[in-house]
């Protein structure tokens, strides 16, 4: 028995027995671990996406399950893309998106720059500044509704104090011109700390030795800021813009709580309009087409933005 070569024994062993002895291959084990995740991904992300695309070509209404669903081709897309109300909603979203990002990045970066300096009470101030971010959007919405009250609101009182105007003479959430700014101010108050934290991480990742070398070369503080600080924080800033851009494109809760999309439809953002079409008017096919248009827009924008971010990181 001892004289038989090991290869011969291995070849003589039936496949089923050999498999049992060897146990599972590394590949099989990897598949067992990965399979639940892939299944969940398909069930939660991919399937609803494909289902939505299919629904967007139909006249489906989920509140009428017994009605036959008809294929309507591109009619839903045609209606949405020729609807002037939705066009205005897109403009309101763009206004909200651009101004919140600009203000949050500017104020967030300035706060991070200040907090990055060593001073007494630094940690306490960081906690105080970060506080709004920890609140629920519903709470922030309610809170700002009271602040914007024309008679008793603190916001109106402060504006009246500095401008000399009567505090009851204007209403931030009731005025067509001021309401878009009311939601921008509330969102900026809530989410600037998030941008600040990301910028702070960027500022703290810059080694001191670079500033020391710049000092040796007699670079001014201004030059150090533009040639060291900004380029090294830029990837972090871009990441913050990406996060806030995606979040604000689907902004819903805070705005509903504050203005409910009004007055008129001046603060009706796309997500609010989409929800109304889908769950108040129950136009499932139409709202699916709306959702697909928004998805393609965000996906396209995110793709080119991530490419730009990678280029900045490579520098």
């Amino acid at each position, binding site marked *: 028995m001892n004289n038989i070569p090991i290869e011969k024994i291995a070849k003589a062993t039936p496949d089923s027995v050999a498999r049992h002895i060897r146990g599972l291959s590394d590949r099989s084990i990897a598949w067992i671990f990965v399979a639940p995740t892939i299944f969940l991904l398909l069930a939660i992300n991919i399937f609803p996406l494909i289902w939505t695309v299919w629904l967007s070509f139909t006249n489906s209404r989920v509140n009428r399950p017994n009605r036959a669903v008809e294929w309507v081709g591109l009619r839903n897309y045609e209606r949405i893309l020729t609807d002037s109300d939705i*066009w205005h909603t897109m403009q309101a*979203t763009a206004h909200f998106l651009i101004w919140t990002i600009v203000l949050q990045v500017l104020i967030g970066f300035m706060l991070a720059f200040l907090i990055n300096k060593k001073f007494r009470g630094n940690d306490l101030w960081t906690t105080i500044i970060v506080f709004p971010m920890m609140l629920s959007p519903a709470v922030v919405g309610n809170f700002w509704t009271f602040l914007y009250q024309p008679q008793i609101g603190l916001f109106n009182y402060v504006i009246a104090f500095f401008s000399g105007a009567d505090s009851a003479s204007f209403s931030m959430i009731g005025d067509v011109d001021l309401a878009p700014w009311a939601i921008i101010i509330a969102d900026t108050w809530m989410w600037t700390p998030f941008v600040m934290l990301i910028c702070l991480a960027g500022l703290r990742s810059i080694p001191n030795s670079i500033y020391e070398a710049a000092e040796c070369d007699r670079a001014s503080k201004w030059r150090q800021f533009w040639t060291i600080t900004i380029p090294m924080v830029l990837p972090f800033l871009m990441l913050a813009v990406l996060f806030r851009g995606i979040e604000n494109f689907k902004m819903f809760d805070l705005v509903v709580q504050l203005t409910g999309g009004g007055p008129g439809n001046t603060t009706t953002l796309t997500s609010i309009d989409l929800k109304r079409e889908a769950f108040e008017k129950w136009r499932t096919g139409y709202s699916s087409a709306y959702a697909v248009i928004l998805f*393609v*827009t965000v996906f*396209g*924008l995110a*793709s*080119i933005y991530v490419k730009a971010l990678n280029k900045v990181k490579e520098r």
Partner: protein
Amino acid sequence: MNDFINGLFRLRRGPWEMVASVLIALGVIMLMQPVAITLYTYSFIITLTGTVMFIVVSHFPE
């Protein structure tokens, strides 16, 4: 400019990604601009073309 056109003819990733990015950006601007509803009407097809193109050309060689 010559490199860009040569890259397009030789199906290189860089120039084609640039074209796709410009289409996406143009589509988004058209979607959200307040000037003409006609631009808004054709915005989605341009964004969709750019996005699909971006996905395809990102598999082209460098």
